[in-house]
């Protein structure tokens, strides 16, 4: 039997209460003034003693933090692309890649604002595998990130309990798909929706959160703990 919205909401409320309770206990026990970042990471570690790294939290917060992590990665990537443009970048490319940078920053900041104190920390990225002077290297990485992002949102929708957050994810994923198609066409015109991402039923690929993070972690220096995310 499928979950009703109430069951999901109640679970989400419950998780929230648990989280708040844990935080109160923690504050009482330490009685110390801590920075927000330290607090978040302490709570994160507290939850999984045998599994360190940034914890995403539970319920919808986990999924939103997961999206926040991916948007952090994308934003950081395009910020670098625009800061150190590749050799031979055209003005049209520069203009639209700047648009994409701004979209990803907007997404990142939106999730940060929506999550408030439940947000994970700012992640440290690692783009040492990317040659930012090379158009091919940059666009191939952009393609990988955009396709990954779309598959991540497509796969995460089923885990979102709140209708409002589901719609917000829907509002973002189609913009990521527009990016993906554009980047693919820059690399090879006509590859906007080829068979590497669309199956014979005309359906785009989905990826489960842990599979996505397994791919993304190459570019993320901060250790992530995916244990609270659906496998």
């Amino acid at each position: 039997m499928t979950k009703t919205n109430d069951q999901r909401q109640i679970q989400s409320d419950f998780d929230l209460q648990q989280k708040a309770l844990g935080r109160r206990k923690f504050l009482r026990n330490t009685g110390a003034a801590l920075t927000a970042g330290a607090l978040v990471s302490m709570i994160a570690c507290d939850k999984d003693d045998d599994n360190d790294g940034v914890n995403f939290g539970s319920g919808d917060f986990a999924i939103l933090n997961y999206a926040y992590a991916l948007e952090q990665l994308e934003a950081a990537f395009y910020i670098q692309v625009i800061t150190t443009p590749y050799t031979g970048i055209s003005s049209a490319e520069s203009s639209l890649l700047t648009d994409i940078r701004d979209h990803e920053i907007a997404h990142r900041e939106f999730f940060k604002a929506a999550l408030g104190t439940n947000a994970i920390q700012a992640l440290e990225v690692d783009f040492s595998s990317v040659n930012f002077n090379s158009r091919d290297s940059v666009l191939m990485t952009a393609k990988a990130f955009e396709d990954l992002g779309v598959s991540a949102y497509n796969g995460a929708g089923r885990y979102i309990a709140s209708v409002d957050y589901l719609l917000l994810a829907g509002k973002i994923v189609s913009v990521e798909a527009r990016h993906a198609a554009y980047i693919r066409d820059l690399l090879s015109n006509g590859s906007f929706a080829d068979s590497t991402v669309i199956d014979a039923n005309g359906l785009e690929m989905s990826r489960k959160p842990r599979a996505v993070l397994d791919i993304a972690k190459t570019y993320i220096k901060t250790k992530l703990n995916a244990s609270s995310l659906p496998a």
Partner: protein
Amino acid sequence: MNTLKVLNIISEQDPEIFDRIDTRRKAMHAFSGLGKKIALISAPFMLGTVLNKAYGQSPSSSVIDVLNFALTLEYLEYEFYLKATSSAGLIPAGAATAAITTIRDHELAHVNFLKTAITGSGGTPVAKPIFDFSGGNGTGTGPFATAFSNYQLFLAVAQTLEDTGVRAYKGQAGNLINSDDVLEAALNIHSVEARHASHVRQMRKANNFGDVKPWITGKDTGGIGALVQANYDGEELTTQAGVNIINIGGQSISANAASESFDEPLTTAQVLALVDGFIAA
């Protein structure tokens, strides 16, 4: 029949009844106390439907309605592209024909997938409507009457159909929140439509048919104009979930970028009104 009494009797047997029958938290409040009495007594005939949905087979009839709505839109898109690729001299040979053929084949795949999904769920796929791609409601003399001989107009209609399709699928997500597999399939189609929209917009730009980007800026039609303005109205939002996206977090985010960053949904009724001119019968 006193429907409230019936519900109370059921609730003795099934304490979760109020959880089952309500699909929204707000609705649960409406069903408790005074709100519950008013809601149920004023609309007793609703009860059967409500209970059917609560206990009924999965997916519920409303999910099949969503799938049939999607099927209608996919019929429309497929037949539009089929007619276009069958119209000699309309689409330039090479990359343009290849791209439109790719899109056409995806729409056909969506039609077939949705039919199978509906049948597999115990529903009956709706029949394909008779379309009038002039947008003339069956007269054949609507504003898009030359779309299969005028490439610029063809791409304008294609862009509008794709962008509207993205909005239509997005608007159904909430209706599928309790049917995870159907929701995921709908999302898997939704992003494909967005890829199509992006590419068609690039084709229009490359042909100088409009100053258009792969994404939607404000509620701009990309030079198509008043005929399709209603398809883009509402896309100009720069506030999401009460959060102002312009310059969010101290970042330099313009109103244009803020609106482009989020695509907006349309309701079933809005979509049906927008495509009404294309449906002759």
